[in-house]
């Protein structure tokens, strides 16, 4: 089925566009600082801003640690239909993100000299860095909270607000910096960044005024939950750490064993490798959907989303490879590599690094996929991808063939890392669970998805019926489920007029009950509400059904409607049930 014809596919696609943009924007934020510093204030300013990059990255990393785990805990609680628990996770995350900003701010304020010594700040840059650093303290204070809110707003399904916020962040960062630098000098860059983050936050807060908002602050602070948050962040955080260690080790190796004239090529290659972060956008788009399916225990849903994820990996991986191969000469010039002695090598290095893109994309998406249930395997995938394999091949080939060997190593390493991860998976979990680790979660569920119109709704109803018949579900229960599919589906159709709407209906057959989950991306409508305004016979029919049906729940989930119903199977001997 085409991605555009399914509920989850459409949701994934709309989230993917924004997540890719937000990932690119995150990379662009510091790049803009550097470009403006270099172009408006000269090379010393560029060097001064560059020395502060690790600090900025670290603050972002702290924000990511809190946000990644909280998004997972929040979305899982939503999937389990536990709104209070979801609010607790959100509340706790807000407190942690804000507190971490304050702590980082105080550390940076009180231990400035120690920090500069740790970074290895050259004396010559100290005078230039200080005014930049003073305003950067403000960024340190608000960035973890801003990052956290942006991730949660996105995970709550508000792609429009996220897109707008990131777009304005970049726009105002450029505008403010250009306006402030002439009067404030280098401080204008960090001041511009600070004010643009404030605007970013201001825009994100509009989400809380929207009807679709399901983020509600609830004061909560629990050590066990904090541990869960960091446990789920382990793959993402280890990726940052591995990349830092890799860059450090490879730089040291390069300085000792290679021609230092090629050092700018190495600096450029690090940036090219960092571009791989864009693949993280694929997971960012899938994560809220998958976490909800996991919360439901719906393996079929997870499998369906991952099918689209795999398609996106392949498309983005191939696109990135082709773009890097084609634009390698342009990229080298962008990094000011003009010298004839190293330009061909720089172009070749970019093209070599591009070869590994597809394998890196697979590993970048699957590492966080495993972090929910198997954090250590997830960390294993991250370390293989970002540290062990690249450093092994770069060092071995670099020692034999010099710097060119290193670039070849970058091409080979991701594929070997992928092969090792596959073997490790098969040895650990077996062939049957490859690669999604789903067996029982798939058996119990059946899902149908379609664009909402009368023909499709009835077609979906008939498919659900066929599934229930195949599992010998009693006639009276089948009838209720069929009525539910038709009436709810048609009510969604009626209430959305000409608006294109998609719905998904899932059933789960358990020992003595049937669980039905209906999702739609139409106008917000709680059909379990027995007080629903009755405007026609169908609404009256649905409210009558809802008054009769005891086991029912509605929850706004990632900005779409989600209804859950449960039917007890009285005569269970006759039903082919799966426990």
């Amino acid at each position, binding site marked *: 089925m085409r991605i555009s014809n399914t509920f989850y596919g459409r949701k994934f696609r709309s989230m993917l566009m924004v997540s890719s943009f937000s990932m690119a924007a995150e990379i662009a934020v510091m790049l803009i600082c550097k470009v403006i510093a270099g172009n408006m204030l000269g090379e010393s300013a560029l060097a001064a801003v560059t020395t502060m990059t690790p600090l900025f990255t670290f603050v972002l990393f702290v924000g990511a640690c809190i946000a990644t785990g909280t998004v997972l805990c929040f979305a899982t609680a939503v999937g389990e239909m536990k709104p209070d628990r979801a609010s607790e996770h959100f509340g706790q995350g807000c407190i942690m993100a804000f507190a971490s900003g304050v702590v980082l701010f105080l550390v940076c304020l009180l231990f400035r000299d120690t920090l500069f010594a740790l970074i290895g700040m050259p004396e010559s840059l100290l005078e230039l860095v200080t005014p930049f650093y003073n305003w950067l303290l403000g960024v340190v204070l608000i960035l973890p909270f801003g990052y956290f809110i942006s991730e949660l707003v996105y995970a709550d399904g508000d792609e429009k607000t996220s897109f707008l916020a990131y777009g304005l962040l970049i726009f105002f960062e450029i505008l403010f910096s250009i306006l402030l630098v002439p009067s404030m000098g280098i401080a204008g860059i960090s001041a511009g960044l600070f004010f643009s983050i404030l605007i970013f936050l201001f825009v994100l807060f509009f989400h809380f005024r929207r009807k679709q908002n399901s983020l509600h602050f609830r004061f909560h602070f629990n050590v066990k939950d904090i541990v869960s948050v960091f446990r789920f962040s382990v793959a993402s955080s280890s990726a940052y750490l591995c990349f830092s260690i890799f860059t450090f080790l490879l730089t040291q190796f390069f300085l000792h064993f290679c021609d230092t004239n090629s050092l700018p090529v190495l600096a450029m290659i690090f940036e090219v490798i960092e571009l791989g972060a864009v693949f993280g956008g694929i997971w960012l788009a899938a994560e809220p959907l998958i976490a909800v399916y996991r919360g439901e225990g719906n393996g079929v849903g997870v499998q369906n989303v991952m099918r689209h994820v795999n398609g996106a990996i392949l498309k983005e991986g191939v696109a990135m490879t082709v773009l890097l191969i084609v634009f390698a000469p342009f990229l080298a010039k962008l990094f000011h590599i003009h010298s004839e002695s190293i330009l061909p090598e720089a172009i070749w290095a970019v093209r070599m690094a591009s070869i590994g893109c597809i394998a890196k994309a697979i590993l970048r998406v699957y590492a966080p996929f495993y972090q929910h249930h198997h954090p250590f395997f997830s960390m294993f995938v991250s370390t293989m991808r970002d540290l062990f394999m690249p450093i092994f091949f770069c060092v071995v080939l670099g020692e034999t063939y010099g710097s060119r060997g290193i670039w070849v190593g970058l091409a080979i390493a991701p594929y070997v890392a992928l092969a090792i991860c596959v073997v490790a998976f098969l040895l650990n979990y077996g062939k049957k669970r490859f690669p999604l680790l789903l067996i029982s979660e798939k058996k119990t569920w059946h899902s149908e998805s379609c664009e909402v119109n009368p023909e499709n*709704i*009835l077609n979906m109803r008939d498919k659900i019926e066929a599934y229930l018949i195949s599992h010998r579900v009693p006639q*009276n229960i089948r009838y209720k489920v*069929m009525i539910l599919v038709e009436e709810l589906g*048609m009510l969604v159709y009626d209430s959305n007029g000409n608006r294109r709407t998609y719905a998904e209906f899932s059933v789960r057959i358990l020992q003595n009950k049937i669980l039905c989950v209906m999702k739609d991306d139409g106008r917000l409508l709680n059909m379990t509400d027995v007080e629903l305004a009755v405007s026609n016979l169908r609404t009256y*029919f649905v409210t*009558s*059904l809802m008054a009769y049906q005891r086991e029912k729940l509605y929850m706004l989930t990632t900005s779409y409607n989600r209804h859950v119903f449960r039917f007890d199977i009285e005569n269970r001997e006759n039903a082919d049930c799966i426990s």
Partner: protein
Amino acid sequence: MNIKKNLEGQTLLIAVEGRLDTLTAPELDGEIQGKLNDVTELVFDFQNLDYISSAGLRILLSAQKIMNKQGRMVIRGAKPEVKEIFEVTGFNDILTLE
């Protein structure tokens, strides 16, 4: 869905087989609208009706409205599942079930 009509004097018997849902209800509606002029008794035979949704109920309701003015309407042989729908929606108080 299959519809069989049998007019005996002023009694119209309509036997409906299969499913009366969103897609099939307009067909039944077409068989009733404007065709009940001389009918004083309308009998629906639901013995072989497997499924009815709100779209089907709407047709029954409009037929009942007409028959309230010119005679009576009866539903015969409805299966337990169909009867349950009438009960849930309170239609069993409006319609005459036999």
